[in-house]
């Protein structure tokens, strides 16, 4: 347990963390370049071999029942007046969903 004075020091120090913005820009430009992508990318399977969902049907809370554990993390989306829950345990086997929520096209990735 931190003493109050230690906590104050902690909070004060937090805002003094040096930020290496210039270094990041140069490095990031390389990481996000096509040349570096071509050099480092690894083709681990054929395109579309990994399953992707397109506009999957959604269950109601009642229909989902106990299939989703209450403590299970979900990616929650509330958009255009509509709410959707994408359980991490399901997304782990899909990784990508082309969906529409509140009539707005979205890509859910994990």
């Amino acid at each position, binding site marked *: 347990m931190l003493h109050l004075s230690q906590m104050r020091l902690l909070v004060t120090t937090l805002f003094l*963390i040096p930020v*290496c913005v210039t270094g990041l820009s140069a490095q990031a430009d390389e990481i996000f370049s*096509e040349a570096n992508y071509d050099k480092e990318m690894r083709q681990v399977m054929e395109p579309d071999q990994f399953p*992707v969902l397109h506009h999957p049907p959604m269950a109601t809370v009642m229909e989902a029942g106990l299939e989703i554990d209450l403590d299970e*993390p979900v990616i929650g989306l509330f958009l255009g007046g509509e709410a959707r829950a994408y359980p991490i345990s399901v997304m782990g086997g899909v990784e990508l969903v082309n969906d529409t929520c509140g009539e707005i096209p979205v*890509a859910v990735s994990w």
Partner: protein
Amino acid sequence: MYGRTLDGQVLNFGHEGVLYRNSFVMYDKETNSKWLHVTGEALKGELKGKKLGIIPSQIMPYRTWKKRHPDTGVLLGEKVSGMMGTFTLKDRISSFGLSVGEGRNVTLFRFSLLNRLPVLDTTLADAPLVVCFDQTAIYAVAFRSHLSGRQLHFSALSSVPDAEDTRPLMRDAETGSLWLRMTGECLAGELKGSQLEQVPATAWLGNRWMAFFEGGRDVQLEKL
């Protein structure tokens, strides 16, 4: 979570079967451009350099989500266990952070830090914001802390004593108003009814974030 509409065109994505820095790559069926799913940026192809708009989403326990949205739709399907499928609460504190901002200008706030400092006033590109953490549900969210020309500074409160409502709260120093920490809605006080604007932010595995933003602003206890 991204919008799929770019310059008026709706894109449909597939899995390229490629890993780049341990993160998978998407392609769009319309132009076959290659997109990083972790940043929503096209690295190759006709749409190279374009970015998908981030749509704010939150990772939280199903219990919390459906309490907030009882009419939510739920995706059902085959469950996958292991690293990509499930995380225990302890895993999430030690492994995840909230990446706030867009493009290169992002900052990672580690959950391990936010678990100790669940309401954190900070800045991003000179814009003041507050990063909030739910220590029970283990998720984070960020809001602009500038409201109607006034800069607010927040501190964490536990839930209202003896109340049934256990949602985490915070209070602003300027007016003493009471706010819902995870939705940015003001419940009581001078600013009652006000709503803080949510900032684009995504939960990342810390090591994957570092693979793209090494040298970036990584705010964690261990660095203090």
